[in-house]
Structures are given as structure tokens and as C-alpha cells.
């Protein structure tokens, strides 16, 4: 029989098909990179029976050398570049870069701009969490949650589109301010969207989180204690599900987060279910913030949306554009001064952190006074979470892999950068 050739090993040796020399009763399964459940990454899993023994995440399939590219681009050109780290969370991802550069420039965005940034950050956070939940759903074979989350994410993407003019890559915060003010009918739409989403979250809980089938998949799976989570240096809802009271919005309030009233949900259990619940609760808090910020923006006059340095010398045309007097341009568009095209940043080192949807994102920016940054270091939330796969997964069953993998809300482009 032909089968003999394959089993005796005399014939074909394909790289993926070869059984690696592992100890007795173990074999290696490669989840990814061209695998329906993996995304753009690969995980080497060594399995003993059904139990995972060794897990080695192999990342870098969508690496784009952003840190190097940033060194050859002007300061403002890097904002659209860094957005590509995680386009569903574009505002949160670029905000710390903008803040770090603002620190070097010695300016701070005026109050209205801070609120506008907060608004888009929270819209992004909701969209990002919904995306994460959707992927989580499809990992557990729950296609309905996947479709629901992606469908409802559309509501928030649409909201962001009305605010910024782009669905995903908003390029919204710029040094010293933002690029658009809210349209006139925006507050009404935003309130409708938040009210709708609150109702939907209850249904999500019914069909997914409280569904006995899903609960049994998630409960006591991938448990991380408080100390373990701190030792691995994970970020975002993943540590708050383990009981760590850390959120940049709480520990170092930025933008308007010091002025709005919201809660940081912290869970104790540290299992996959707690991580899923933490996201749901966070979406709820984000909706609260959106409501508050929108009310604030409505009450306060439309002024001070850009730092003085970049707006004081603005010609009349720029003000006309803002007020919508140009026929082909939308209202409340804030034009950038030509100085942005060749901005020189004073030399220095600065560091900024922001709580993005998936967790804390950190930028280290170094300038030598040129029109390009000297060094930009980005540590995206997913890059800090990926280490968890290596340390949390061993000891679980192979079928738990998607349950753990999805619960950390991984996003390959974000950890590859």
C-alpha cells in the first residue's frame, strides 16, 4: 500500500508534516499562520494527549517596522502611520504619541479639544471591545455574537465617521488640538447610539455570557492571579479582571478623564469569563462617558478647539472654513497651519501612556530638534499581552486554546507593529 511510504518516512518530507522529535506521547500542533482560528500569527503547541504542555507564540507575520519608518518621517506624518498599529482603535493608539510630542513642544490642548479627544477615544474603545468580543465569539463557535458585535460596532464607526470624516483611520488628534468639531446633530445621534447599545449589552449577556454553554467554556479557564498578572506585565481589561486596580485613566488622568464621572470595573476571578465581563462593563462605562462628554460639548461654546500657538495667527479663510462659509467644505473643519508640514520639535525625551481599548499603550519619543523624530518606541497593548499565551496556556486542554486566546483580545497587527 502507498500508506507504507508515508509512515516509513522514505518518501515525502514536508516541513509542516514532519513530526518533531518530542518526548514520548507528545506531539506538536501548529496553530497558524494560515489557520482559521489564528489570525496573523502562529502558535507552536506541544500537546501531551489533550493537554498543552508547551506553548510558544511566534509573532511577526504582519510586522511593518513602524519604529524605523517613524525616524524618516516628519512629526505629523507619523500620526497616520501609527494609526495602522490598530486601526479599530485609531484615536487611542495615536493619542499618546500626540501627547508625548505636545510635552516636548511644551503645549497642552485646550479644554474643548480635550473633551473632543475623550469623545473619540471612548467611541473607539467601544468599537474595539465589540470587535474583540466578536472575535471571541467566533473562536467559541458562537457566530451570532460575532455578527452582532460587528454589526453594532458599525453604529459606533458611523458615529466616528460623522465626527471625523473617516470610518477607521481618523487621524483625529493633532499636536495642540483636534481636526474637527462635532456636527450640529451629533449629540442627538450619540445619545441614541448609547441608549441602543446599553439595551444590546443585556442581550449580549443573555445569548453569550450567561449562556450555560459559553459559561462552562470560560469559567475557571486561563486563571491569572493578581500577582501573576502583575509579574507578566499584562495590560488593560485583562489585569482588571484579575483584581489589579490599574487604569491609566484612573492613575494618571489625561485629557478630560479627570472631569468626567465613571467607574473602573475590577473583577476578582481572573478567568476568561471575568475578562469577557470586564469588557462588557467597560463598554457600559464608555457609554456613560460618551453621554457626559456630549452634554458638555453641547453646553459649552465652540471656541478654543486648537492651541493658541497654532490658531492665533490663522487667517480669515481658516475661520470661514470652520464656520462653514466655503460651499464645498463641511462645517466645523479645523484647518492646520502650514507650520505643521515642517514642524520642528525641541530636543528632549518624553514618555506618554494612554489607556487604549486593549490596554495601556506606551510611547517613548526622543527628539534632537530636527523635523524628524530621533527615536520613537511604541509598546502596544497586544505586544504586552502576548506573553500571557506562553505562561497561561500550558496545563489547559487543546480546546481551551481558543477560549484563552480570544479572552485576551489579541490583535496581531497591534503586537507586530
Amino acid at each position, binding site marked *: 500500500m502507498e500508506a507504507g511510504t508515508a509512515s516509513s518516512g522514505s518518501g515525502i518530507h514536508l516541513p509542516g508534516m514532519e513530526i518533531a522529535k518530542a518526548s514520548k506521547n507528545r506531539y506538536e500542533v501548529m496553530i497558524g499562520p494560515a489557520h482559521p482560528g489564528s489570525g496573523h500569527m502562529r502558535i507552536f503547541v506541544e500537546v501531551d494527549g489533550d493537554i498543552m504542555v508547551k506553548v510558544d507564540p511566534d509573532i511577526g507575520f504582519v510586522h511593518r517596522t513602524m519604529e524605523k519608518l517613524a525616524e524618516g518621517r*516628519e512629526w*505629523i*506624518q*507619523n500620526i*497616520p*502611520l501609527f494609526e495602522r498599529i490598530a486601526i479599530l482603535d485609531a484615536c487611542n493608539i495615536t493619542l499618546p504619541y500626540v501627547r508625548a510630542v505636545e510635552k516636548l513642544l511644551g503645549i497642552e490642548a485646550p479644554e474643548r479639544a480635550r473633551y473632543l479627544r475623550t469623545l473619540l477615544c471612548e467611541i473607539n474603545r467601544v468599537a474595539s471591545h465589540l470587535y474583540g468580543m466578536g472575535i471571541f465569539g467566533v473562536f467559541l463557535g458562537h457566530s*451570532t455574537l460575532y455578527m452582532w458585535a460587528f*454589526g*453594532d460596532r*458599525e453604529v459606533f464607526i*458611523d458615529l466616528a*465617521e*460623522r465626527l471625523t*470624516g*473617516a470610518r477607521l*483611520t481618523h*487621524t483625529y488628534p493633532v499636536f495642540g488640538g483636534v*481636526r*474637527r468639531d462635532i456636527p450640529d446633530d451629533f449629540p442627538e445621534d450619540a445619545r*441614541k447610539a448609547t*441608549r*441602543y*447599545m446599553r439595551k*444590546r449589552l443585556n*442581550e449580549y449577556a*443573555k*445569548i453569550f455570557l*450567561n*449562556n*450555560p454553554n459559553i*459559561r462552562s467554556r470560560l469559567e475557571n479557564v486561563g486563571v491569572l492571579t493578581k500577582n501573576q498578572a502583575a509579574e507578566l506585565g499584562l495590560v488593560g481589561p485583562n489585569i482588571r479582571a484579575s483584581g489589579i486596580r490599574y*487604569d491609566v*485613566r484612573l492613575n494618571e*488622568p489625561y485629557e478630560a*478623564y479627570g472631569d*468626567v464621572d*465613571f*467607574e*473602573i*470595573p*475590577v*473583577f*476578582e476571578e481572573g*478567568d476568561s*469569563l*471575568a475578562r469577557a*465581563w470586564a469588557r462588557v462593563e467597560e463598554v457600559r462605562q464608555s457609554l456613560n462617558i460618551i453621554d457626559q462628554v456630549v452634554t458638555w460639548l453641547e453646553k459649552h461654546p465652540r471656541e478654543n478647539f486648537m492651541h493658541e500657538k497654532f490658531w492665533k495667527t490663522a*487667517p480669515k*479663510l481658516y475661520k470661514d*472654513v470652520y464656520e462653514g462659509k466655503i460651499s*464645498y*467644505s*463641511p*462645517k466645523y473643519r*479645523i*484647518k*492646520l497651519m*502650514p507650520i*505643521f*508640514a515642517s514642524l520642528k520639535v525641541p530636543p528632549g525625551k518624553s514618555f506618554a501612556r494612554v489607556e487604549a481599548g486593549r490596554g495601556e499603550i506606551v510611547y517613548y519619543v526622543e527628539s534632537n530638534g530636527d523635523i524628524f523624530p530621533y527615536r520613537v518606541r511604541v509598546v502596544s497593548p497586544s505586544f504586552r499581552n502576548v506573553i500571557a499565551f506562553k505562561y497561561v496556556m500550558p496545563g489547559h486542554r487543546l480546546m481551551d486554546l481558543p477560549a484563552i486566546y480570544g479572552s485576551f483580545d489579541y490583535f496581531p497587527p497591534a503586537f507586530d507593529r
Partner: protein
Amino acid sequence: MPAKVSQKKNPKRNPLGKVFAGNIGALAVGLKYFFDPNRITLLYPHEYIKLNKGYRGFIVLIKEKCISCSSCARICPAAAMRMLSVKVYNEKLKKYMIKKYPVINYNRCIFCGLCVDVCPTEALYHVPYHDIVYENMNDMILSLEDFQKEPENIEFKEGIPVKYYFDERRGLVKTPYMEELEKRNEKEEKNQKVEGEGEKGAS
């Protein structure tokens, strides 16, 4: 008011009651949407979204306003916009001068809109659509003449324009955008009339 920490726990379940309640709850939600579907899909080539005015779509140049300052090309993060040197006859000085105008490569453009925002004379503007098909990659690099025209969209001729409205109960509601349809019908009627007259003339 700074943020507060709220300590929470996974909702508890007792073995029997919640298993029943959980299953029934899930099935009930499923059945609810089975009988009352909440559809959000856009049947794309048959329908298309009529986007708002502020949407950052394709970019058009108003050549008369351009002052050749190169700000747009310098700020472009993808190097999609570059300055092209053109010989222009200057009436005042009565001689040919070299003037620079931007041209765009849509292979590279990421629609960030920084060029539009940085232009000191508003010589660039966005059209609120982005779904345009080119036959090959070379066509996506526009010449200076093409860059001044609003690109033509094929879907706009056949599909139904649709707008999404926010709704408390259903999230986004898809509604045909009648004004646009009527406008288009009027145009078509006019065209037909013109054609008809042309035929008559020919006969």
C-alpha cells in the same frame, strides 16, 4: 470627578435554576431576532451609502486657487501627492514660468485628508465617496487634468442611494435617500429627451 474603582464579581449561578434560565434566555433572544430581524447589511452594488458632506473621500484640485506652496506634498504621509512642474505663461511678465502643481497617486493615498486641511487657500477638497474602480494601477495615478475633475462613480448610476439613520431601538436604520434618486431620475429624463431629440433630428 475622577474615576472610581468598582469591585465586581462574575455573576453567580446556582447549578439547576440558572442552567434552565440561561438556556431559555438564550433561546428566547435568538427566537426574538428570528421573527423580528434587525438587519444592517448594505446590499452593496444594488444600494450604496450616500455619505455626508464631511466624508474624506477622493480629492479634487482647484487649480486656480493653488499657490504652489508644496505644503500638501510635504505633509502627505504616504508620499501620494507630489509636485509636478508645469510651464505656465505669465501674462504680466510676458514669459513662460515654471509653476508646481500637485498630482496624486491613488495607489498610495490613505485618505487622511492632511493635504486638504493644510492647504492655505482651500485649493483641495474631498468628494464624499471613495468606491471608484480603476481598470489598472496606472490609471490610479492621475494627471493634472484628471485631478481637477470629480471622479465618476458607476454605482451612482444603477444603485439605490441609502442613508443610515441612528435609531434607539434598532441602532442603524437603512432608508432610501429619495432626494438623490429624484435628482438622478430628472437627469436621466433630461438625457433621454436630449437623445430623443437627437434621434428625431437624425431621422
